[in-house]
Each structure stands twice: as C-alpha cells, then as structure tokens.
C-alpha cells in the first residue's frame, strides 16, 4: 500500500496545478483572453472576410478598427452619450449599462448594436437582433458613408415614443450597405428586409421549422447535420456546430419559401 499524507498531497496539488499551468504556457496553449480576431466567413464570395456576428463584448473600438477597418475614434464618439465620452480603448460591453437608463423600455444598445453598426459600415452581412436600434451619432456616421440608404437606416432610429415591444427583427439590407452594393454581394435573406411570419431569424427554433411544414430529414439535409431539439434555435445550433447561421438560414429559408 502506497500512502500519501497531508503535506505531500498539498505539495502535489499545488505542484500539479501550477506545473500544469506552466506547462500549458510553455507549449503556448495558455490563453486567458480571446484573440480579438473574429471568425471569418468560410464560404462564398465573403470567404476569408471577418464576420461581424463574432464581435464580442470584450472587443474594444481599437480591436474593431484592427479587425474591420472601422475607425476607432469616430466609432467611440458615435456611441458616446451626452454624459459620457467613450474612449477607443474601452470595451464595447460598457454600452449596455451606459444606455440602459437612457433608452425606452424594451430597447437595448449593446454589443449587438455594435455588430449591426460594423455590418452596416463595412457591408458585411449580419442577421440583426430583434428590435435593434443605433444611437443617433452612429446613424449620422453611417449616413455619411457613400451609397448609404438613409431610408434603410431609418428603421434603426430610436423611436421617440417607443412601444413596450420593439419592432420585429430586420436583416441588414444589402441596399443599406455601401460596400455590399458596390461589391454586389448579397445579404442572407434580405428580400424586403421585413420579417414575415415565416422568416427565419435568430430566434427561430427547429420546432418553428417543423410547425411550418418542414420535416426533420429536410432540415438535416439543409444544414448538413442532425438538428437539435425542438426548443433549440437554429442560430445556437449553428454556433454549437461551427457553422455560419447566415448560410444555414439561406438553405432553410428556401425550403420554407417552397412550402405552400
């Protein structure tokens, strides 16, 4: 019988813990922050370009400039409030708290708004969150971009008399984005930009798809893997399986639209 007493165990616990950390540092695996390099589109004309959907709250405006070419100082200024001037080195996660007391109930400006802003600025496609709004400064900056559609931007204006329930989600329309219109790239499920009763949006679940008449086999064939449970959203499933939601959405929307 090999016995281990308290002191040797304490030494072993501390040594294995710190030794393991040191080893993972030595082999270059120890990383406590995200790389601030967003995931890239994998397929199509946009393959290799950074995906705004992967912007995290830990990104600073400087990170965004580096990754997407959106000027940090101007962006930080565009999202600043009357009471608080944002520093380009600040994380975008501060926005949610900053705008919470300013916005009407049901509206939010946070990391999702930054993703939308970057998408509109660069023309890279994004499925906007439901009820997305942008601060006036950001809309003004975007409206100065060549080829920007002011009317399309109008849907992101903070309503002066906001309803309790925000407007339904609207995909970023290609027409609103100068880069997209210039490059001719198409947006996922743009159409009129209005969500219909059978439009696939971020919160659409597999259960919704089945309710709209699709079979599990059809869904599996469209997305390339076995779909999750009914309650799982397609977006979450895409994330968990390393897929682009926008790509799955196109395939699934085509199936839904083909149904009578």
């Amino acid at each position, binding site marked *: *019988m*090999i*016995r*281990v*007493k*308290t*002191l040797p*165990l*304490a030494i*072993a*616990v*501390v040594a*294995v*813990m710190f030794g*393991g*950390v040191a080893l*993972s540092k030595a082999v270059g*695996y*120890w*990383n*406590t*922050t*995200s790389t601030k390099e967003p995931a890239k589109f994998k397929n199509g004309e946009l393959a290799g370009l950074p995906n705004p959907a992967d912007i*995290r709250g830990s990104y600073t405006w400087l990170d965004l400039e580096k990754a997407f070419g959106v000027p940090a100082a101007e962006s930080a200024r565009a999202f600043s409030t009357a009471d608080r001037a944002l520093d380009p080195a600040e*994380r975008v996660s501060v926005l949610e*708290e900053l705008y919470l007391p300013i916005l009407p109930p049901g509206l939010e400006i946070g990391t999702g708004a930054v993703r939308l802003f970057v998408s509109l600025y660069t023309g890279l496609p994004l499925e906007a969150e439901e009820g997305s709004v942008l601060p006036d400064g950001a809309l003004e900056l975007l409206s100065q971009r060549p080829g920007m559609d002011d009317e399309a931007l109008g849907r992101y204006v903070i309503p002066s008399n906001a309803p309790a329930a925000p407007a339904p989600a609207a995909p970023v329309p290609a027409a609103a984005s100068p880069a997209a219109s210039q490059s001719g790239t198409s947006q996922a499920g743009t159409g009129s930009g209005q969500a219909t009763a059978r439009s696939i949006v971020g919160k659409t679940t597999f259960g919704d798809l089945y309710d709209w008449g699709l079979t599990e086999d059809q869904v599996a064939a469209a997305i390339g893997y076995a779909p*999750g*449970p009914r309650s*799982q959203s397609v977006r*979450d*499933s895409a*994330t*968990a*399986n*390393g897929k682009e939601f926008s790509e799955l959405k196109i395939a699934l929307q085509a199936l839904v639209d083909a149904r009578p």
Partner: protein
Amino acid sequence: MASGASTKKPKKASRWIRRAVQILFFALVATIATNEILSERGITALSFVEGASLHAICPFGGVVSFWQLVTAGTLVKKVHESSVALGVIAIALAALFGPVVCGWICPLGSLQEWLGALGRTLFKKRYNAFIPGRVDKPLRYLRYLSLAWVSYMTIVSGKLVFQDYDPYFALFNFWTGEVAIAGLVILGLTLVLSLFVERPFCKYACPFGAFLGLFNLFRVFSVKRVASTCISCKACDRACPMSITVSTSGTVRDHQCISCLKCTSEDACPVEATVVLAAGKPRVATTTLQATGSEEVSR
C-alpha cells in the same frame, strides 16, 4: 476489526496545511478576477498579478467546452484555452486523488466550509444534521441533474448557460453589475445554508463537483480504512463534511468524497495509520501483546 487500546497518534497540523492551500487559492482567484475587472475600468491597483476573467480560470468552463472543442474545434463563448488546460489538470488530479479541486482549491467550497465552522459553533451537534438522512440521500443526486442540464444546454447553445446561476461567478463579481439575479440569489442561499449544512452547494447542486465525484469510483489514491486496527469510534464519520460513513467502508468510493482528509488518522481518526489516503490494498495488521500488557500494532 480490532478493539481496545491502540497506538495513539500525536497531534498533527494537517488541517492547517489544507487550510493554507485553500486560503492561497481563494486569495489567488479573488486577486486575479478583481484585477481583471479593475483593469477594464482603467485601475491598476492589483497589477502585480496577471488579470484574467473568472471564466478563463474556471476549469468547469473547459470541461463543458470539451464537446464543442471535439466536434467543432471551437470553444464555448467566454471560455478560453486556459479553462481547457485547467479542466485537464482538474481531471488529472481527480484521477489520482479524487476531487481535491473541491476539497482543497475551490474558493466557493472553502467559503462554505469557513461559514460552516461558524455554524458548528452556533449549533454544536445539531450542525449538519438538520436534514433527515432519508431526504438527504436522494437530494445528493440532484447535482447530477444539474450536471446533465448544464452540459446539455451548453452543448446545444454554445453558451455558458450556467453563468447566470453560478454562485462561484456571483461570489467574485457581485459588485460588478454583471451578475444575474438568479446567481446572486443562489449565492445568498448557499452562504446562509452553509450555517446549517456543511457545503450545501457542493452536496446538492454543484455540476462540477458531480463530474469530479465520478472519479471517486476509480481514483488511484483513495481513502482507506484498515479494519484490523479500527476501534469503531466513528470519529471519521463525525468529521466527514460530506456525511460519508467511513467507519464501515474498506475503501471509500462514495461519489461525494472531496479528499479533504478530515477523516484520516492525520486528523479525526485517533488511531495511527488506520484511515489513510493510499493506493493498493491495505496490509493486514497483526497485534502483539507486549510484556507491559499494552497492545501495539505492528505493521
């Protein structure tokens, strides 16, 4: 099982050794997490340590990311490679010594234990005995439901769903405004219940503890009781914070053991080398009557 007088062990400082390790890791985690939050706000008061988010230094984040890492090659949002490394380290330690991460390292476990000392002072023998055994035993399996739910939801959503309910996250972030109400409530309940029950969150709800507890079934070094020298005083049972009956076990395989060694001959057990952390089969002890008439254990 032998009875009668046996070799009495000298007093040891084993519990202080473990307490020192617990304090070390509590202080380390608190400093690292606080430094990260302060540095986000431009304050460099704790810059003598490397800052990291609590998610980055939580091994459970690494464990629940394994599935996504294997199937998609990506990590769950907010989880970093450091969490995976810590998850692997925790598993290696558990395979060797059982859930020592729970008993020696986890700051939330330590805090519950420290509050428990207060509860023990307040309630004396009633402490840790408020819940009847017939209710307590099935409740112990609740943490496997917790583990199943957290694992499933993390796999299907690709997000750290447990963050909103995690008292460990709430403990070090309660002052930041980033903690969900549910997390704060669960933290508050955990701390209050710790005054009545030893390590309530560990026993009934912790998904990571449930995961590590599985290693008790096949760990290399286990808590073993040498029946031939045991005097059946049940001091080991009374000392166990997880209410495991050590006094009738040969090798403790209970899924709730946290390898705290409180039951062993270095702490509660009054007989030398009778309850030990060891690998392999215990050697059979023989007893020899000495000329003085005393009984001595020879090994």
